[in-house]
């Protein structure tokens, strides 16, 4: 059976388990043929999953919550990265705590999501009078050219490495250490309709990914070389370093989403105006036992 998976961003080590499962034939073993697609915009994946045009989407827990708030019928199927990786990143050494950013321009990467998180972050940490600016994907140039003092959105595991490669040392505040509740950074999501019609296939997909996750824990070097086999064009040095940082955050084999984590974040989102409606985690997290 064929499954279409749309990523959240261009392929990178975050998606390594998917490529390992693909290359190790775990998908095939489940009778699946998985097509991996890159989106044009971060919100595309969830939209298309909700519309049933792709079967699975890689998305973020906050984004899924906000999408559900907007009425999209999607559920988290399995976690991929279980801890937040997102940071508020800056270069200036003189910035010691978030409040030092008051009155400055602060960039954000994903409009509609990161700007909201930034608002919450600023409220909690007493950043006043700042100007939010959408910088898109150009995080480092925006920082390096001093157009913005900090950027909300880069991953501490990936962007730090690419910046290091360019000879720039990035400093950052980790969100979860500054009052933002812990959340699952990357998850697999599927539309409700897909979950009914292709239930078995989705199960098979999750099983295959878990197998890959187990392999990664066992033999990281082999996993990485399988990944490079799948994506021959990527910069090996960066990805290797990023993988070293990311590996510990991957979900454990068999791990499922934690409803309490989701509830905490939903409360936070309600409080800071990211969402307007009360949402129940059990409506968002799909589990085989539910039905």
């Amino acid at each position: 059976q064929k499954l279409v998976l749309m990523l959240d961003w261009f392929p990178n080590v975050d998606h390594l388990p998917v490529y390992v499962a693909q290359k190790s034939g775990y998908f095939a073993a489940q009778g699946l043929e998985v097509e991996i697609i890159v989106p044009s915009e971060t919100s595309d994946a969830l939209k298309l999953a909700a519309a049933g045009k792709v079967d699975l989407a890689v998305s973020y827990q906050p984004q899924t919550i906000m999408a559900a708030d907007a009425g999209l019928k999607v559920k988290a199927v399995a976690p991929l990265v279980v801890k937040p990786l997102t940071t508020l990143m800056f270069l200036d050494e003189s910035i010691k705590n978030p409040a030092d950013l008051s009155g400055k321009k602060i960039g954000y990467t994903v409009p509609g999501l990161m700007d909201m998180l930034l608002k919450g972050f600023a409220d909690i940490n007493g950043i006043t009078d700042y100007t939010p600016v959408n910088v898109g994907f150009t995080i480092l140039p925006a920082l390096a050219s001093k157009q913005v003092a900090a950027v909300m959105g880069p991953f501490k595991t990936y962007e730090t490495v690419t910046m290091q490669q360019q000879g720039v040392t990035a400093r950052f505040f980790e969100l979860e250490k500054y009052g933002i509740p812990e959340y699952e950074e990357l998850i697999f999501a599927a539309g409700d309709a897909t979950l009914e019609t292709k239930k078995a296939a989705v199960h098979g997909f999750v099983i295959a990914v878990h197998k890959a996750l187990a392999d990664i824990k066992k033999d990281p070097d082999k996993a990485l070389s399988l990944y490079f086999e799948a994506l021959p064009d990527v910069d090996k040095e960066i990805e290797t370093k990023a993988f070293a940082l990311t590996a510990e955050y991957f979900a454990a084999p068999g791990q499922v989403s934690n409803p309490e984590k989701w509830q905490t974040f939903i409360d936070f989102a309600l409080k800071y105006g990211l969402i307007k409606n009360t949402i129940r985690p059990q409506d968002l997290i799909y589990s085989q036992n539910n039905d």
Partner: protein
Amino acid sequence: MKWSDTLFPAALTLGILVLWEVLVQIMHTPAFILPPPSAIGLCAVIKAPLIWPHALATALEIVLGITLALGTSIPLAIFMFARPGIEKGLSPFLVASQAVPVFALAPLLVIWLGYGIWSKVFMAWVIIFFPITVSLLSGLKSCDPDFRKLFTLMGAGFWMKLRLLYWPWALPQFFAGLKVGVTVATIGAVIGEWVGAQKGLGYLMIQSNARLNTDLVFACILWLSGMGIGLWALVSFAEKRMVTWKNN
């Protein structure tokens, strides 16, 4: 103009809208992917107070972009016309400049030019510049050589010829290019607002898109289209006023 000819586009519009509405209803296309036209229209009207200041900001960028484009492409076209050798050498650059996908550069451009209005104006400018230059140049070059010689015999210098002969000759083609230019200028400004904007229809669209307010996205498109049509009509009007001598 036949009555049926006026009727046809109206019928077409209505037909498309109805079909769209019906299809969206029948196929249960989710509103976050393609809202029904009724929802879009409603949103465009109800949310007008929200949209209006953004539209104003975008309009300003477009107008500045067009002004800048006119101010640069007219002299350039004339210069290239006056020196065909230079035209030969320069046109590959012009062409190359067009094949550069600006929106891919947009984020970098914004960093070069700052997050203010100028990066957006620049985008609009880049996009309009080319069609105007090409059409004006092609219009100037299409001038009947016999008339050129006549003016030489009258002892007219280049500027005199330009004023009395080349320019009026090129006007119709210039206007054709200008029409294309002002229309796509709207896209230029919106692309500029993609990143680094605090205001403008492009900003509003990106935000609404991310928040899955797809009807607002399409409402913005409706407003943009309105602006495009307005500019088009304005240019058509100017054309009618300035190209009066055609005998039909």
